[in-house]
Structure formats: C-alpha cells, structure tokens
C-alpha cells in the first residue's frame, strides 16, 4: 500500500463519517443516536469557517502574505447573498456573485498593495476590514445597521428544500468538498507548484520566469473569493446577520486559526477551523478565558511548532517512518519549521 492508497481510504472513511454523523444509527446496530440540531449547526459552522480558512491558507501558507480582511470578505459574501436572495435572485446565482465580487475586490485591493512592499498588504487589508465593517454598521438603508438582516431563507436544491438542518448540512458538506477539491487541484497544478516555489525560494522562482507579483495577486484574490463563498453559505446557515461577526477582531482570528491548524498544509484550515469553532464550545465553563487560552496556544505554537497542528502530525509521521523504515523521509516532507517562514 502506498501513501496515496492510505490517503484515499482515509478520506473515504472521513467522508462517510461526516455524512452519517447527524443520523440516528441505533436501528442499524450502531450505538450512535445522531447529532442534535445544535451539534449539526456547529458542524456546519465548522465547514463554513473552514472554507474561509482555506482562502487564508492559500494567501498565507502558499503566497506568503498576511491577510487581515477575511472576516470582511465573509461579510461581503453574506450581505450580498442575503440582500440578493431577498430581492428574489436564485441562491446559486447569489453564491456565484459572492465569489466573483470578492475576487474582483481582492484584485483591486491587492494590486496597489503588492506593488510596494511585502507587508503592506497586511496594513491595506487591515484598513479595508475596518472600512467594510463601518459600512455594514452605518449604511442602515442597505444593511439594516446594527439591527442586521433577519429571516434569510435557506435555498432549495433541485426541488429539495434545504430548510431542514440535516439537509442544509449535507449541502454545505458537498460545497466544502467541491471547494476543497478545487483547492487541492490549485496547489497540485503547475500553477500551484509555482506558489510553492515562490514560498520556498522567491529569488530562484523569479529567475525561473515566475511572475511573482501576478501569482501572489491571483492567490490573494482567490483566497478572498473563498471568503466570499463561505459568506454566501454563512448567511442562510445563521438566517440572521449583523455586523458583529465581521469586526476587526474576527479578521485577526481567521489568520490565527490557519496558523494554529498549519499554514501551507492541506488539512491545516480544517484543523484550525475546528479549534476555532469547537474550543469556545468545550471551554464553556471557562467563559471569557478561551481567547486567552487561544492566544497563548498561538504564541507557544509559533515558538515551538511553526507548522501548526498539521505540522506536528507531519513531524510525528515522518519521525515514525524515519525510525521504522530504512528510507529517510522524502525531501517533500520538509521539516515543519520551514513551512511558515517566507
């Protein structure tokens, strides 16, 4: 069995578990009574967060740029979807429009910022995130201001209504799988390999004829579009949106969750999103302390394992292989410590 086989089997198992987890299986002899409404909601929220985090991962882990506006892009997608579907546009079109609009905004934002200096994109996105939040809050005629927009209806798919929470969960699961596949394809394509080359050694990448700025810009814009797609799913999930989830602090948390999960690794955003969505649930007893724990976790990880949780697993995996097999780890499994460094 090669590593690929194992990956396929593991993915199939994971997919089956994710599909079955909200169902009551006690009738089939399996002691699992299925997730309740709230559990399924949290799981759906995890998927939506992971989509946005995949976008951040593309920007941070592959193109080596910081984005501090992913919550704002999520907000643009969410408001766009809420407003257009309320005006009668089909959900499919609203979903596509959310991705296209955020992609274009990403191009407009990234183009001037990437012209200058490496870390200017961080500041420009920081400013943009605050501006977008101000617009959500202040333009009452459009966004409802602090009162937000309520009664956002869930769409139906080929005549099947997604009103029920399990149906909607399966729908989001399907979209996430599709977007994850696109992400996987991007980083495997020659195009994605250019990103990796860029991350590992920018000078050499440029000398091989890779247009650094164009690739970085496209990576940034696609990452923003993932934020928009996530927003388009977020609005019908929560059925009510207000400016709070798109405030400045949320922008920072998106960046941090990708780092916790493992920037530059495929599984990273999913792990990071799980930590970001589930940790507050587990730490209910600790009330407000979870952000403290979260921040400490990031600082410790940065100091000892910059590859994040995914990097830790990878390191564990390659260490075991190195100990048991006679073959040393392939150069592709580079030490995790290099993954985040630009």
């Amino acid at each position: 069995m090669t590593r690929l086989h194992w990956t396929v089997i593991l993915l199939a198992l994971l997919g089956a578990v994710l599909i079955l987890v909200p169902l009551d299986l006690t009738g089939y002899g399996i002691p699992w009574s299925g997730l309740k409404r709230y559990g399924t909601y949290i799981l759906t929220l995890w998927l939506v967060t992971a989509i946005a985090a995949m976008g951040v991962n593309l920007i941070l882990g592959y193109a080596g740029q910081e984005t501090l506006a992913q919550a704002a892009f999520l907000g643009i997608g969410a408001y766009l979807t809420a407003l257009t579907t309320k005006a009668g546009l089909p959900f499919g079109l609203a979903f596509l429009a959310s991705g296209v609009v955020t992609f274009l905004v990403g191009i407009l934002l990234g183009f001037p910022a990437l012209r200058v200096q490496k870390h200017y994109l961080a500041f420009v996105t920081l400013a943009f995130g605050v501006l977008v939040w101000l617009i959500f809050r202040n333009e009452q005629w459009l966004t409802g201001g602090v009162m937000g927009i309520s009664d956002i209806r869930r769409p139906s798919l080929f005549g099947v209504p997604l009103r029920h929470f399990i149906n909607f969960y399966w729908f989001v699961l399907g979209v996430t799988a599709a977007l994850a596949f696109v992400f996987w394809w991007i980083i495997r394509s020659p195009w994605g390999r250019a990103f990796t080359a860029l991350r590992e050694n920018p000078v050499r990448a440029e000398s091989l004829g890779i247009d650094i700025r164009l690739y970085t810009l496209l990576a940034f814009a696609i990452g923003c579009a993932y934020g928009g797609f996530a927003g388009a799913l977020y609005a019908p999930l929560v059925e009510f949106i207000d400016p709070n989830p798109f405030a400045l602090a949320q922008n920072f948390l998106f960046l941090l969750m990708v780092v916790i999960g493992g920037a530059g690794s495929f599984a990273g955003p999913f792990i990071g999103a799980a930590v970001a969505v589930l940790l507050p649930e587990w730490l209910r007893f600790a009330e407000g302390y979870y952000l403290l724990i979260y921040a400490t976790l990031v600082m410790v990880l940065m100091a000892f394992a910059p590859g994040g949780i995914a990097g830790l697993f990878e390191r564990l995996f390659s260490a075991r292989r190195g100990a048991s097999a006679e073959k040393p780890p392939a150069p592709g499994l580079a030490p995790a410590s290099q993954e985040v460094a630009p």
Partner: protein
Amino acid sequence: MTDFIQLVIAGLATGAIYALAAIGFTLLWQTSQTINFAQGDFVMLPAFFALAGMTWFGLPFSVSLLLAIGLSVLLLGLVFKLVIVDPLISRGVLPLVISSIALSIFLREGTKDVYSAEAQPFPALFPDVIVSIGGVSVSLAQLGVLAVAFCTIIALQWFLTGTRTGRQMQATAQNRQVAQILGVPVERMILYTFLINAALAAMASLLISPIYLAKFSNGEHLGLAAFVAAIVGGFNQVRGAILGGLVVGVVDNLAAAYVSTSYRQAVPLALLVLIILFRPQGLLGRKEERAV
C-alpha cells in the same frame, strides 16, 4: 475659523501621542525588522499598571506613574524581546507578525479578565482649565500633553543624534552588518530599541488615558492610529513617524467635526490607502529597495 484652530490644536495634542506610539513602531522595524501588531495594546496597558498601583497597593499617583513606566520597560520591553521576539527573529518576519497578533489578543483579554471590562477614569496630569489666547480657547490639558510629548520627542532625537549610544543605534538601524563590522554592539543596541519603544508606549499611555479613559479595548484604535501614522509619515524615518502622527491626529479630529462621527474612523484609513497608492514610501520616507 476659531473653531477650526481649536480643532487643529486638539488634533495636534492627540497626534503627538500617536506620534510617540508610531516612533516606537518604526524604531522596532528599523533595527530588528519587527512589525509589532501589539503596539496599540502596548499603549493601552501601562495606564492599567498605574491604576493597579493606585487602587490595589494604594500608591500615590506620581509613584504609580513611575511604576507604570518601569513595569512597561521591563515587561513590554525586556520580557517581550526575550520571550517573544528572540526565539522567532531568525525565522523571518511572518512568525513574529502572527505571534504579536496573538500577544495583542492576550494583553487585551488579560486586562479585561484581570482588571476590568469597564472603561476606567484616569486622573489627568494637567488641570483642565480653558485659557483664551486671541479669541481661541485652548485647554491647558491639551497644551500640557503637547509639551510633554514634544519634550519626549526632542529628548529622543537628542539621544539618537547627540550621544554615542544613539548614533550606534542609528548605525544598527541603517546597516546591521556594517555596524557590527565597525564594532557596534548590535545586540545591545537592538535591546535598547525595545526598551525605548516600551518607554514611549508608556508615555503615550499615560498621556492619552485621561482623554479616552483607560479601557482594555483601546489598543484597537491606538494600534491602527500608530500603523497609519508610521506608513503615512514613512516607515523608515523617525521624523516621518512624528509628522505622520500629527497628520493622523489632526485629520481624525477634523473628520469627526466636519465629515461624520460614524465615519470618523474611516478617514485616516482612506488617507492610508491614498498614501499607499500615490506615495508608498510615505511623506518623508526614502524609497526602500524590495528585498525580492
């Protein structure tokens, strides 16, 4: 017209405080390529040190102020460098950026949990007396803030250009390798930069808290103001940071009066975007060669 002048003077007073935070920010960038996303929280925290000194230990106000400056030099200067910066500095800018963002959340939430989530009144350093000069009424508090901020800046400038240590620090900032070859103790100079940054942040904190009240979430606004000031003025120049701070303070204040209070925050950010579009090196900055 007198309204306008009053607004400008008030803006200069807050702008001078922003300048203090922005100077520290650019100093860190110059000497050690550290982008400190916790800078706003560095300005938030020292006021709480002073408050803790007064309410928990019953110290007099003046002693608490000294305690605040001392503690922030120790914690936000020395400990920050040893614990957060030193282990990460060799891995490039990105890990440090992430870590400083986490530190910012840590300081903010820690202050909220340990001290209070409510905005705390902070005793004023200067009496809030209004004096009228040629029809323009100015508050003594504002003039006092301006005076203290400018004395700090002048003292810093004298230190950087007039003393041997200061010139060694400048040499380190301009070209670390050459400075090292010429016998400058580079590591110690970088440490001094961190201590100075912490001291400047503490000064800014003690000056701004009587105006804005001390609140755990102040760092968000102050940090943004410091970034915008540093970039508008020129990321690689101390005098750029001073100009940037003053510009941001005045623009901020005028925007609140003439644009709209709900979009007050947006105006400095729009200024930032314009600067990046049309004068990316900042008002006073030198063009920097891209590393790649």
